[in-house]
């Protein structure tokens, strides 16, 4: 074990914070991510991180808390996408792209004003990439509370959301307000994504939203099982990535170490590629069959 866990790993305060924050956000992202992938809204999920980042750069300017900036901008962005027509599958990517383009334009302005008004260096990089190791441990309670809120929202609208994600015609025939469910899901996605961008950075936010969910949906057609696989995969990838990043400072005495986002994204990406291999899919499918009665997403409905 010594070669995996370098000395002082678990007694290091920033690392402890990273384990807690990373684990919580990875689990929540994975759950929300399963719905995001099933609904085909990966682009919106990614665009909202960039929109949230715009809020983050604006918050430096307005002097409000970054968390408020990230989540506020995300919620406004989700509303704008809904207004531009993100709920229809056709033209959805254009609606998302328009909001993304406008938001990044604003980000250009905010970052320009940030760097000209205050001479803080590293702002651009910090906002764009974030780092799980520099997070203030005081944000843990806020992140945990908002994560619980996100999961509660998902649990509350679980069945209508599932139904309208799989077939909007069927859902409206059964009296589900598809438009309202769609808006509510976008808001939940915005909160979740804003939260993870501020806690673990915008690159990791999308990777942990889409990667584990997509990999697990390739492995099983049972949705409940997909939630479990995605959650476990997301949390494991995050924790392993943190360990590797910490260790990488010791690999070469002269090096500065490698960023944690690099390790986590690599693990998630690899997991996605492996999940597409026929051998792996058949292996998981066989184990699934042994444990539970074969059931598919369609049967869950």
């Amino acid at each position, binding site marked *: 074990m010594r070669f995996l866990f370098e000395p002082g790993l678990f007694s290091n305060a920033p690392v402890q914070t990273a384990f807690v924050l990373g684990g919580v956000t990875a689990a929540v992202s994975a759950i929300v991510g399963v719905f995001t992938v099933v609904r085909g809204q990966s*682009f919106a999920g990614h665009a909202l991180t960039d929109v949230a980042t715009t809020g983050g750069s604006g918050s430096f300017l307005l002097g409000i808390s970054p968390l408020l900036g990230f989540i506020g901008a995300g919620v406004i962005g989700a509303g704008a996408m809904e207004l531009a027509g993100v709920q229809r599958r*056709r*033209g959805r990517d*254009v609606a998302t792209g328009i909001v993304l383009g*406008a938001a990044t334009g604003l980000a250009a302005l905010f970052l*320009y004003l940030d760097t000209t008004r205050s001479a803080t260096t590293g702002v651009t990089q910090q906002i764009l990439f974030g780092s799980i190791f520099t997070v203030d441990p005081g944000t843990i309670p806020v992140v945990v509370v908002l994560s619980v809120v996100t999961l509660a929202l998902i649990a509350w609208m679980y069945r209508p959301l599932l139904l309208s994600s799989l077939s909007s015609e069927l859902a409206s025939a059964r009296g589900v307000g598809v438009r309202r469910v769609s808006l509510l899901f976008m808001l939940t996605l915005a909160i979740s994504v804003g939260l993870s961008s501020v806690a673990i950075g915008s690159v990791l936010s999308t990777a942990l939203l889409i990667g584990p969910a*997509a990999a697990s949906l*390739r492995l099983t057609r049972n949705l409940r099982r997909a939630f479990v696989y995605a959650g476990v995969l997301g949390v494991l990838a995050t924790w392993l990535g943190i360990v590797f990043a910490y260790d990488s400072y010791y690999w070469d005495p002269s090096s*500065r170490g490698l960023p944690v986002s690099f390790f986590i994204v690599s693990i998630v990406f690899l997991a996605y590629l492996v999940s597409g291999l026929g051998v792996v899919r058949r292996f998981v499918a066989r184990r699934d069959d042994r444990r539970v009665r074969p059931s598919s997403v369609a049967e869950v409905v």
Partner: protein
Amino acid sequence: MFSGFMVNAWLVATIVALVAGVVGFFVVLRGSAFQAHAIPNGAFAGAAGANLIGVNPLIGLGVFSLGAALGIARLSRRGRSDVVTALALMMMLALGAAFISQSTQYEPQIFSLLFGEILGVSSSQVAPVAVLGAVCVVAVAILYRRLLMTSIAPEIAAARGLRPERVEMAFLVVIACSTTMTVPVVGALLIFSLMIGPPAAARSFSNRPDVAMLGSVVIALFTVWAALASSYTTNWPVGFYVGVFSAAWFGLGRTYAHLRRTRGAMRRRIPSA
């Protein structure tokens, strides 16, 4: 406003608008907005890597944007294309973060790659942008019928023996080509906004593909010219104006389409009443 260094800015902006208008028309028609966002954005990691090993950043940009286009096209055959695009983009950004962590002074360059330095374009940069832009426009002209057919009538395209995944790969390479040269000059964000807003607006104004493409180019030209002039007078970044103006055009197009629909419905209702 039209002298000295600004001449190059006007020239490059015009070329970029022409290319974005033409390529963007198909980006909107085919629903490739995510890919058009991911390829230029992820390509900046290539510039960071080239910076680290001491080669020309343009080579890094070219390699990464081409690699992204081919990788996304290849992986999309077996997985969902939006998922693949998201993961490919994240992998490239994570590599970029790794490259940056190994070099010391990069921040101003990140900013200029994402947001562009159109006001700092040198005369030697104009010709390569023009050549690559011409290549992209010619490529779209050659692919025109195939792109149109596979996006509007996939069944007919299949019946004629067109292979949609080949066309898709060729189109992603065109996107990669149009972004490689333009990213260091105008930034990844500006080119993306130009590829979405003006073409989407033009499609609301006309249903005919040739008219809509022409409209897309004209609107893109107006957008960059207005953005450049505004940026010159206020000193704020060009990317901000391009992003906001593009979104405004989209809103205008949607309003026009909505008005036409409701008035058409009213006109139809009157005789029957």
